[in-house]
């Protein structure tokens, strides 16, 4: 993917006993395939979360 990635996990200030997840992906170049970047970034996030014993529910969309 050739990008800089940062994942932060912290206690949520809004949800009791909740997690705050901050995930940043930075591409330091002119052109980016946004669709590919979005898919790869999501895959990387899910893989990283699995490493620490977390996963999104199967029917979870990223929103309320």
């Amino acid at each position, binding site marked *: 993917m050739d990008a800089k990635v940062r994942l932060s996990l912290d206690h949520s200030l809004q949800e009791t006993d909740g997690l705050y997840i901050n995930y940043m992906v*930075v591409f330091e*170049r002119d052109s980016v395939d946004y669709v590919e970047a979005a898919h790869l970034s999501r895959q990387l996030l899910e893989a990283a979360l699995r490493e620490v014993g977390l996963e*999104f529910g199967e029917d979870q969309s990223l929103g*309320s």
Partner: protein
Amino acid sequence: MIKLLVKQATVDYHGFFAAPAFNLIGEVREIIAGLSKAFAVHNVGLGNFRMEGDAAEPSTAAALVRLGRFGIYQFKFDQVKASLSGFSDDDLEGMISVIEKGNGWVREAVNNFAFKTHAFL
């Protein structure tokens, strides 16, 4: 494995320019017309636009376009930004399409244009 229940999610995109869009400073008509055309498939009208910041301070001036479920797209003279909150996977794909369309217009409208950095948060 602990399953996460998402209560709130926001995606922000920032595209920072290698150099400011000097040729568009003071060209509100061209910016609005260009973004209107870029987002025509979303039936964008003047009511979708909001001009922000201080025209006397180019670094703060911005043209913001509201795109309903696909969030907002904002043009500034040194960057573009897109934001989306409370979304489905389809909405996220729509946001990506918005970024492609908006950035496509920027590349055409700005002289000698290049992005320096793209950041997704």
